[in-house]
């Protein structure tokens, strides 16, 4: 739903710059994500995609610029505070709590306000009926019901990816940041993943997606952000992106076939911070 | 001034002991307490062999050889199999090994302190008003000699390159043809031999060996290798000398108000609060 009217953006990235020593990882990047919108972030390795995610999710304080959620800027860059404002995320490399079950992993993502203080978090996590239902629903949505009681360390990479997404959705966020959910899932894992992404979007949750399978990303997206060497190269609807000469030159040009761009998944991944 | 000399002597012994665990930490991220068992071993062997054969030098050499064997055994049979269990498990295993060693020494050599009875015919050295005891001079010469050699090997030879390669990434180094297990074994052997040497020097200097000789060095060396930036040989040597000096100065100026053996840790905790990344923050030697 890419509305043209005056909708307050859910998340607004304003002139973000991040410097690591001599490296300008992001340079004056601006865009926004509207409620319920599906936006993908694409760009070659080292474009700054992971850094961008780390900034929006509160892991990394930007050197310049700011991120606004519901029109209010993030002042303290702390992941839990950003999470409390309705933004969930996954990671480029799957990061399960391996010793807990799949279900417990998803449940932990649903703690919400109960997690904000020590005393409130001392309540038993297995009791709340509504939460249990929500978790069961998310497990089903992600196709994980069968493995719900297995330790997260033991499930397949594809299941792991979808578990992370379900976990990120636990607290009913309005935006989820999905960092390369297709990495490592193998070709037969792509279909269930794409279906899950579609269903999330259908539920009205906004999605910001970093994905190396550009074709997959663009086919799901309302809009796309293209980054190159830390700078915003293009911003627009998928068709515009596919036709954009600068994008083709800088990134898509070499491996292009009939409008669907297939870029092989990266072997070396950007460093997470 | 004598205090400073004393501090340097102690500090150089600390450096000798800490060098092995520092190199081991660089390779495996294991904090190796068991290394201090080699120190006590070195102390006892110089005592026993000096008594039997009359040659302290033989004792030192046998001690170093025995230390090297111990180091090889420890890494091969104990540490390597549990490496992926995380730092707590390896740390406590090392402590367990050290306890076993201490108890064995106690059962073999008796619980009480024994005198080494090694009289080296060393002349004292007079530098102006400062008198340097022969044994102190020997300690300084030997430790700085050994440290110099280690330094040369690490920075100027193929072995040093191999150590750095494995320290960077054990698995990648293995993949490009570095024999990681052999590098690890060698580092352990050398590290334990250095500790045995330190133990021999220590027992001759203070004319005393006892089962828990390695206790204080064992834990102090942990403080030292952290102060030195964990895995940085140069930092470790600097930190060892500093701790030796600071201990001597503090004890000389404040008497026993603060027990000597807590100083290293007070320094450590203060330093960590100010510079959480260590005195010289490098995981791998920078040349």
């Amino acid at each position, binding site marked *: 739903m890419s509305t043209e009217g005056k909708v307050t953006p859910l998340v607004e990235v304003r002139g973000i710059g991040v410097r690591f020593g001599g490296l300008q990882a992001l340079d004056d990047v601006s865009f926004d994500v509207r409620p319920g919108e599906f936006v993908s972030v694409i760009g070659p390795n080292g474009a700054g995609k992971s850094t961008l995610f780390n900034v929006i999710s509160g892991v990394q304080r930007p050197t310049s610029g700011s991120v606004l959620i519901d029109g209010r800027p993030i002042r303290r860059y702390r992941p839990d505070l950003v*999470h409390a404002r309705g933004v969930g995320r996954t990671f480029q490399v799957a990061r399960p709590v391996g010793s807990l079950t799949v279900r417990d992993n998803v449940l*932990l993502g649903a703690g919400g306000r*109960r997690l904000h203080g020590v005393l409130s978090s001392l309540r038993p996590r297995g009791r709340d009926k509504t939460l249990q239902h929500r978790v069961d629903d998310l497990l089903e949505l992600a196709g994980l019901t069968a493995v719900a009681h297995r330790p997260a360390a033991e499930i397949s990479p594809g299941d792991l990816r979808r578990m992370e997404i379900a976990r990120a959705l636990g607290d009913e966020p309005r935006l989820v940041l999905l960092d390369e959910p297709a990495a490592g899932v193998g070709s037969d894992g792509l279909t269930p993943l794409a279906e899950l992404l579609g269903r999330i979007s259908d539920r009205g949750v906004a999605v910001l997606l970093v994905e190396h399978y550009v074709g997959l990303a663009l086919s799901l997206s309302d809009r796309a952000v293209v980054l190159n060497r830390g700078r915003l190269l293009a911003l627009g609807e998928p068709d515009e992106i596919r036709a954009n000469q600068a994008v083709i030159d800088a990134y898509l040009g070499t491996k292009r076939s009939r409008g669907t761009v297939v870029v092989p998944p990266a072997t070396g991944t950007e460093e997470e911070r | 001034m004598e205090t400073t000399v004393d501090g340097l002597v102690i500090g150089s012994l600390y450096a000798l002991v800490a060098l092995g665990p520092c190199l081991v930490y660089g390779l495996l991220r294991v904090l190796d307490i068991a290394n201090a068992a080699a120190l006590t071993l070195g102390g006892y062997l110089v005592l026993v062999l000096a008594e039997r054969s009359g040659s302290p030098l033989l004792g030192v050499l046998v001690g170093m050889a025995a230390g090297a064997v111990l180091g090889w055994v420890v890494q091969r049979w104990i540490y390597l199999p549990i490496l992926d269990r995380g730092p707590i498990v390896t740390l406590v295993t090392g402590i*367990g090994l050290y306890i076993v060693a201490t108890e064995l020494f106690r059962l073999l050599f008796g619980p009480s302190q024994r005198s080494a009875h090694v009289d080296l015919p060393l002349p004292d050295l007079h530098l102006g008003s400062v008198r340097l005891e022969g044994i102190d001079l020997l300690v300084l010469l030997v430790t700085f000699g050994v440290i110099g050699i280690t330094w040369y090997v690490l920075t100027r030879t193929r072995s040093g390159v191999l150590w750095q390669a494995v320290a960077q990434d054990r698995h990648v180094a293995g993949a490009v043809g570095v024999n990681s297990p052999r590098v690890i074994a060698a580092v352990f052997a050398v590290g334990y031999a250095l500790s045995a040497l330190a133990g021999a020097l220590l027992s001759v200097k203070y004319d005393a060996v006892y089962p828990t000789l390695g206790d204080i060095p064992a834990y102090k060396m942990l403080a030292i290798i952290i102060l030195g930036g964990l895995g940085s040989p140069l930092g470790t040597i600097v930190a060892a000398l500093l701790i030796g000096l600071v201990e001597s100065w503090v004890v000389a100026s404040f008497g026993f108000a603060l027990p000597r053996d807590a100083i290293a840790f007070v320094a450590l905790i203060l330093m960590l609060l100010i510079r959480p990344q260590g005195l010289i923050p490098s995981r791998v030697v920078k040349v």
Partner: protein
Amino acid sequence: MTYAIVVAVTAILMASVVVSLNLTAGYAGQPNLAQSAFFGLGAYFAAVLSVQHGLSFWAVLPVSALVSGLAGAVLGAISLRLREDFFAITTVGLNFVVVALFKSIDFFGGATGIYGLPLPTLGGTSFTNDHFLVLSALLLGLVVLVSKVVRDSWYGGMLMAIREDELVASSLGAPVALFKASAFALSSLLAGVVGAVYAFFISSITPETFGFNQSVLLLSMLIIGGMGTIRGAIVGAVLLTLIPEMFRFASDYRSLVYGVFLVLVLRFQPQGLVGEDSWLARGAARLLRRSRSAPAAVTEVSA
């Protein structure tokens, strides 16, 4: 009989400390080699306040709890700043610093320690060993209850997430710093209370009792039993308290046995004897039963 009770009380008190240690070392996965420092702080404040200032047992308990809890919170705050192995060594160092303080500050009675703690009284009657047995059992019950509440709560789940990946925990909405520091405070507070009871029970304390070796012993108990489980903490503590007693006839070898046992368990069963996934223990138990009693009916496996 008295001797048996003394051993039992000691074992139960040790189990209580180890269960409290499990909160930080087990659930939150923090390398905590300083638990005996907090145990000792509780013991020392109890001893000083009762012997030198005449406070009653019941009056000093909350003081010990508070002092140890605060000290634990400070350590927790330190843990936020340091990498895992830096922090491990800091906890090692803390033992030496605390023992040094006990020895050198007059308030704590110096190197000789503090002697002659009075017996606690309840309703006019002085405590006997039987009373201590009941009290320590209640204390263990309390510590276990607290641990269970933590384990099954959101808080405990997040501590386990922190153990494995702090970034994940905070991205799921947990205030990691607060949770870590409070886990240390809670764990130390409980250890302080146990320390106070322990001091009154043995009636005299010396600095070295609470040194690094004791911290190692406490962590060893937890690891041998099974890190991250309440039953592991209890089994490990009871086992390592009883084994030296059983080897009393060969007292010279007690420490050796302890060391060898520790190394063997860590080397071959690092998840502990009754910890999660300790198949070796179950297999051995089954084998033992089979060899002892003739191939009888299938016996139940009790962990």
